[in-house]
């Protein structure tokens, strides 16, 4: 009784969805950053995936994030970690050239 249940660890669907979507946003941010880093014109040789490829790979890769983060509470602080993990997974995939 020292803590609110919302501060305690444990999986629920709301947590799963929130962290999954936050991780997807982080993943997509990493893929699309060349668009704003080179504003107004994107780099000529930058290759962007098809939109369904982007969303699908983000969703699949974010499942890995959710495996670890779905028991965290839904706060800005924890969602930041999920988004950062999605970003990092995308960076790792790009290093190994697995991003299509």
């Amino acid at each position, binding site marked *: *009784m*020292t*803590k*609110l*249940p*919302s501060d*305690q*660890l*444990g*999986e*629920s*669907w*709301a*947590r799963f*969805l*929130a962290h999954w*979507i*936050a991780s*997807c*946003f*982080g993943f*997509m*941010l990493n893929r*699309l*950053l060349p*668009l*704003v880093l080179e504003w107004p014109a*994107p780099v000529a040789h930058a290759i*962007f995936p*098809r*939109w*369904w490829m*982007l*969303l699908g790979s983000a969703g699949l890769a974010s499942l890995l994030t959710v495996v670890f983060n779905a*028991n965290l*509470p*839904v*706060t*800005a*602080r924890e*969602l*930041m970690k999920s*988004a950062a993990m999605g*970003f990092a997974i995308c960076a790792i995939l790009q290093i190994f050239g697995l991003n299509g």
Partner: protein
Amino acid sequence: MSIESIAQATAKPTPTEAWPLFWRYYRRLVDVLSLAGLAGMVGITLYCLEVRAHYERSYAAAFLIALLGLIVMLLAWAQQAIAARDLASWRDMVEWQIRAAHRKIAQRGGESELHDQYFECLIDTLIADMHSGVDAAPAGEQEGR
């Protein structure tokens, strides 16, 4: 049943107020910073999708799906916050009742009378139930309501 267990259970759990002012402000600052960072990441992603949609028309679908995802994320967030608030107010109510019963017992007589009273047994059961409920089903089952 002992009066200590009741007093222990009815003690107000206020862990945040025990912290010094500096740490409370620090925590709030970190919360605000991470909220700004999260909003920045989501906003930049949506903006990138929108920019990309100017080059490749079909990215408008991705933009729409990302908007929907943002709405779902905010709904899940709100569900968690509302469930926590409901549970907190429910708990406050129960604790207030327990404290009132405790005061009444103290006014009425000593420890010897305690064993004969049905209502206090009920209260003790309630306390044990609250304890076991919090320990056994931490988040998922209680917030699912």
